[in-house]
Structures are given as structure tokens and as C-alpha cells.
């Protein structure tokens, strides 16, 4: 009985310890940032789209984005396994409601596929996303655990007990590239074998190669023989780019670069502060921000950005 109690108390303490759950941009914010990045990128240049053979697919004759250039599905590739995935598998509008589209008919444009990737990069087991990852190794994958990188201390997310949730946490650069932590800053980069992120930069490149050629990068054998099949790889390409862009966005945040727990769950003394945006006047479009303390550059290396709610 005494042992059981000790075990119970231990589990409670572990639970409190791993309750350090930083959160960051909302999904809609990721989508909007991605849309703005897309609008300012070379992807809006017709010449580039023409050179990729995408112009007639992605654009209408007047230059506006075509509504449905690639269809509504894409591929999830893991080694030699290729699984077809639907953009809205459960019919719950999961991604489209975060995209901020005036007309949901625009949910499959080229930029929408990137927004979709930026939204789905936050997929995590036990949350309200579609939970449609076909890879058994990813059955309990929580992608956000791999969205952290502290460049001063060369570390990803480090929270006591987090290894019980995931014992192979990648830094954001390694996760985004599709390589290992050790290889993330040691070129030449090589893809990690059996990686759990199927929408890394390596995956985007492979999908683009298949979209352009209908072949795998390491084989001359025909692979995606039909136009429809190649188009699904285009959708995969832009979805994966969206996933990578999500990580770039996260790296612009103190929370993701300073191992900052700020989940705001009980007890805050252990889990970190809650959001500094006060919701009190949200219905009036006013969010009051209590903010972080100003950090002098000379002390930046040492600051954890932890602070009690004010």
C-alpha cells in the first residue's frame, strides 16, 4: 500500500513536472503569416510558375489563383509507403476555419495548401485536429514538441519528464529539415531514416521531384504516371512547405527559442505564466498586453523569459 501511494504521489509530481506546456501563435495566426509570406515570395511571379510548369494549373488566365489546381488530396510518404490523405478527412472544416478565407471555395489554391501545412504542423495526438496520420509510428505523435530551438544553448524543448511523452525530441531546425539533431548544423545534410516528420524540407523536395518527373528521386522507374498523381505531389509539396514555414514562424518567438513554459495551466508556479493577452475586452477587438520585461542584449544569453503573470 505504501509503495502504491509513493507511486501515486510520484506520478502526480511527474504530471505536474511535465505540465510545462508553452504555447505560441494561434493556428489562424500561422495561416495569416503564411499567406503574407506567400504573397511576398517568388511564388507569385508568373515566370517562376511557368518554369515549374505550374502556371496553367495554379493561375487563372487573369492571373488570379486557380481555385482547385491540385485536387483535394495529397500524399503522406514514409519510405516506400505512400498513403493518400484527404484535406478535410472528417468533414469538420478543421483547417479552412483557420485560413481566414473570404470564400471557402478558395481552400485548395496554391497558397491555401501552404496555409494548410502551416496549420497542420501543430497536429498533436489527443487534440482536435483530424488525427489522420496513417503511420503507426506516429500514432501518438505530438508535433509541437519539436518546434523549439534555443540557439544560445543549442537545445530543443527541455522540460523535466518530457521524455515520458516523447523520447526523441528534435530541435526545430532538425525537424524542419528532416534530419537528426546532430546533423542539423553539420552539412552536408542527410535525411533521417524512418523520420516521423513526413512533411520536412527533404519531403518537400522529393514531392516536388515526383510532381515534375513522375519518378522517385532515386529511381528512373515511373512512379506517378498520371497527371492526377503528379498533381497530388504538387499539393504535397506546398503542404510540406507550409509545415516548414510554420517552424520558421515559431523561431521568431521567444517562447520557442528560450524553452519558455507558459501554458497557464494549474498550477502556474510550475507550468509558467498564462497568456499575457487579457481577454477581458476581446469582444470589442481590444487585447491588453502586459508584456515581457525588457532584456538588455548583454544578458540575453541568460534570460529564460519566465515571468509571473502581472
Amino acid at each position, binding site marked *: 500500500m505504501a509503495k502504491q501511494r509513493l507511486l501515486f504521489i510520484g506520478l502526480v509530481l511527474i504530471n505536474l513536472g511535465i505540465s510545462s506546456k508553452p*504555447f505560441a501563435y494561434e493556428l489562424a495566426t500561422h495561416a495569416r503569416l503564411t499567406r503574407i509570406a506567400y504573397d511576398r515570395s517568388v511564388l507569385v511571379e508568373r515566370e517562376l510558375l511557368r518554369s515549374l510548369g505550374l502556371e496553367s494549373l495554379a493561375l487563372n488566365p487573369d492571373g488570379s489563383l486557380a481555385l482547385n489546381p491540385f485536387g483535394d488530396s495529397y500524399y503522406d510518404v514514409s519510405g516506400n509507403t505512400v498513403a493518400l490523405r484527404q484535406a478535410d*478527412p472528417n468533414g469538420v472544416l*478543421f483547417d479552412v476555419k483557420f485560413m481566414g478565407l*473570404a470564400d471557402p*471555395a478558395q481552400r485548395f489554391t496554391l497558397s491555401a495548401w501552404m496555409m494548410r501545412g502551416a496549420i497542420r504542423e501543430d497536429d498533436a495526438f489527443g487534440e482536435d485536429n483530424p488525427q489522420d496520420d496513417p503511420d503507426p509510428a506516429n500514432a501518438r505523435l505530438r508535433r509541437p*514538441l519539436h518546434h*523549439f530551438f534555443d540557439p544560445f544553448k543549442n537545445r530543443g524543448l527541455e522540460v523535466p519528464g*518530457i521524455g515520458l511523452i516523447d523520447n526523441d525530441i528534435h530541435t526545430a531546425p532538425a525537424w524542419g529539415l528532416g534530419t537528426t539533431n546532430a546533423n542539423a548544423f553539420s552539412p552536408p545534410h542527410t535525411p533521417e531514416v524512418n523520420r516521423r516528420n513526413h512533411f520536412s524540407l527533404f519531403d518537400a523536395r522529393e514531392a516536388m521531384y515526383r510532381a515534375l518527373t513522375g519518378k522517385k528521386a532515386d529511381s528512373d522507374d515511373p512512379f506517378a504516371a498520371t497527371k492526377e498523381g503528379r498533381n497530388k505531389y504538387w499539393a504535397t509539396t506546398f503542404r510540406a512547405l507550409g509545415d516548414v514555414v510554420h517552424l520558421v514562424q515559431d523561431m521568431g518567438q521567444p517562447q520557442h527559442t528560450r524553452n519558455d513554459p507558459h501554458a497557464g495551466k494549474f498550477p502556474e508556479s510550475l507550468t509558467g505564466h498564462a497568456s499575457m493577452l487579457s481577454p477581458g475586452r476581446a469582444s470589442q477587438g481590444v487585447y491588453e498586453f502586459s508584456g515581457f520585461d525588457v532584456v538588455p542584449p548583454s544578458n540575453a544569453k541568460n534570460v529564460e523569459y519566465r515571468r509571473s503573470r502581472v
Partner: protein
Amino acid sequence: MKTVSNYIFSLMASALCALPLTACAGLSGGPVEGRVLEANTHKPISDVIVVARWKSHLASYAHGKTVCYHVLTTTTNSEGQYQFPAWKEDITADWQKNIRPERVLIDAYKPGYHFDSVPRDRPNDRVLAPFTGGRGGERLLEIERTKQATVGCADPRANGKSLIPLYRALHDEAKPLAATREEESIVSGFLSWIKIIESSGKR
């Protein structure tokens, strides 16, 4: 000593079970009631579509997000009064157990009006003012913003179908205002949203 130890143990066990209250009790909200008044005159406004959105921070491992877990719409009566009854529903997905009810947001919409203020002492009331801006694109953007504030609730799991009357009203006001192709796209978007909401969750 043993009694104290047992007491502490029971207390901790109870506390642990109490944390996910929603897991036992399901999701619930309301009742919510208030009035919609006109700025300056302070007269009640009837036939205003009022939207109540129940939102929560969904904390998870290493991140969190805001979710809309229920939405209701109703219309004010001749006294400008509105009322949302108490509601309750079962939890049907694991993630809903992590919902920590935080706040209900109230929005009020009537063609030709825009949001003015919330009375400090009556947080559920809304004050609208006649829209005096440009009748074309400027008003259209105002209408579009009203929709954008609610699309996060356009989810069958959040009772998103209740948004349909709002989107129909937005469409009806927006339609004669659209002059450019882009504005027509915004207008047709209301109908697209209705169509998608009606068909969502049926796969």
C-alpha cells in the same frame, strides 16, 4: 498519523479527479441574457442577430490554442432583449476533456449598424450605432469582419449550423454593395460558407 496520511491521499486523489471536471460533467454554458441598445438614443434595437461564442484555451503538451466549442445565435425582441438558454452536451472526443471554459463572447449584428461599445456595468449588453461610413466597399469590409470573427466556430462539433442565419443576413446586406469582382467573391463566400457548413460533418 495513518488517518492524516489517508486523508491527504484521498484529498490528492479527489483533486486529481476534479481537474478534468468537464470529463465528468460534459460541456455546458449559459444562460446568457442582455440587451442591444442604440448609441446616443439608448433605445432598444429589435431584430438584431446576437451571436454567443463559447471559447476556451486548450492547453496541451508544448503548446496550446484557442478553440470555439459552442456557438448559438438568437434575435432580439422589441425591447432589444435577447436570451440564450443554458445548454449542455456530452463529450464525444478525448480532446474535449481538456476544454477549460474561459469566456463567452457576444457579438451583435444588424444591417446598417456597427458595433459601438459595451456598457461597463452590463457586460452582456451591446451598443450599436448606425453605420455612417461609405456604403460600398467600406461597409462590405465591416460585414466581412463580422463573419471572420465567427468562422472559427463554423464547426459541426461546435454547433456551427447556428451561424447560418447570420451568414444569410450578412449575404443579403452585402449583395447590393458588391461592385468589383473581388467584392462579389466576398459576397458569394457567404453562400459558400452556408453550403459547406450544411454539408460538414456528413462524411
